[in-house]
């Protein structure tokens, strides 16, 4: 069987030293809700070829679990659990789409350990925090032995399970814009709780006298990564926001998505429901701005 090592470094210096060692594969561990079952499954299999030892680097001792409110934007530590963010008053007041996404994610006992950084770095096209963060405008801060860099979330994902982060680079935080508009997140799952999205969507809308001045729309679980819906957005800017304009614009999501068949739903079904989920997110975001 493969060998496993566990470390819980308390400094970045030690973390990067451990992560850069030769002859081992390193993996960062946050809450473990995605990673631990994967490791357990691997341990239950008879290996087909010899793999190098897996070095598990637990990030929980680095103090990356705070939320900082800087007025215009909010910086969220990568190790914040979904439960702690759900209870966070700043997130609720300033980042409604993210708050709403958190209410729809997994169930209490997963939210208690799962982290926001893990949800992003796992890079699933169905990750529920991602459409919300994307429409709000989010930058990811990555840290490596050679320093920090910031990458826009819009440029962060390359394919399912893959991001622009290099091996050994840690996501330390995300910085999210509060914005003056309204935002919302909607999800369609196979059941109400503890389920991954069949399709999810988020929207951010700025209105003046009922006319849409700016809008960002994102849809998830319908393409290899979460995608922005440019045509939908273009169809709304400068228009009065109402049932008809939202329906017409939402039907254009088709152009942005390339759904597949999987265990949760068929490509056909995803294509049919995506406009509806997107329309719900846009109306709720617009409503939030009015109310």
């Amino acid at each position, binding site marked *: 069987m493969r060998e496993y090592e566990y470390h819980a470094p308390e400094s970045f210096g030690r973390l990067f030293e451990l992560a850069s060692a030769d002859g081992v594969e390193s993996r960062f561990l946050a809450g473990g809700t995605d990673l631990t079952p994967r490791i357990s*499954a691997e341990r239950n299999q008879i290996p087909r070829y010899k793999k190098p030892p897996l070095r598990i680097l637990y990030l929980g001792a680095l103090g990356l679990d705070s939320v900082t409110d800087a007025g215009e934007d909010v910086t969220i530590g990568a190790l914040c659990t979904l439960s702690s963010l759900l209870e966070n008053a700043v997130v609720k007041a300033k980042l409604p789409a993210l708050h709403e996404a958190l209410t729809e994610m997994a169930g209490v*006992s997963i939210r208690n*350990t799962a982290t926001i950084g893990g949800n992003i770095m796992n890079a699933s096209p169905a990750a529920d925090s991602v459409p919300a963060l994307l429409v709000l405008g989010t930058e990811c801060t990555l840290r490596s032995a050679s320093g920090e860099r910031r990458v826009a979330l819009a440029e962060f994902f390359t394919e399912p399970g893959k991001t622009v982060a290099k091996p050994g680079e840690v996501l330390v935080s995300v910085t999210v814009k509060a914005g003056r508009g309204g935002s919302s997140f909607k999800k369609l799952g196979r059941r109400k*709780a503890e389920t991954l999205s069949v399709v999810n969507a988020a929207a951010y809308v700025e209105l003046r006298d009922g006319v849409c001045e700016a809008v960002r729309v994102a849809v998830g679980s319908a393409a290899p990564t979460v995608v922005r819906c440019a045509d939908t957005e273009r169809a709304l800017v400068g228009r009065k926001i109402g049932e008809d304009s939202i329906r017409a614009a939402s039907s254009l999501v088709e152009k942005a998505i390339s759904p597949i068949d999987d265990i949760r739903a068929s490509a056909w079904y995803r294509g049919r429901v995506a406009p509806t989920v997107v329309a719900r997110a846009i109306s709720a975001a617009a409503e939030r701005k009015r109310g």
Partner: protein
Amino acid sequence: MSRILKFNLNGNPAEVKVGEADTLLEALREGLAFTSPKCGCNHGDCGACTVIVNGDAVKSCTVIALTAEGKNVWTVDGLAKGGKLHPVQKAFHEYGAPQCGYCTPGMVMAAVAFLNRHPSLSSLTEEEVKDALSGNLCRCGGYKKYAQAVIAAARGDFGPLPEQEGSGKNV
């Protein structure tokens, strides 16, 4: 390689030899022979392995054991005090909620953590209870009675909810 994990289990200091990639569920079941948490799926989906860590319900199959170093872990074994069942256990028993019983220890821990954290038990709703137990699957389909029993326990039908260690409140 294996290491020694030191933590608190049901209010008592515990030490157990664990593999470095072992889950908390394995440490409890195989290392310490605490078999109340069940391994229903080993994938975070079913909730049969739910235990309380530092006051929060967590699925122990998703937790790498060594991350629990120094933490307070409670299983259903630690709830009964002086031969008396915890009100949630009594409620489940009286309502006949468990059928095969496989999901029951996880249901108990999810319910206890929920009640301990709830700010006002008198105004608790059925929706909230369902939400709290939504991560716990019951193949026998006994959801309704489990939910009713938790509401009854919250109401105090089975005695006051203990505030001491066993409740998980101070853990």
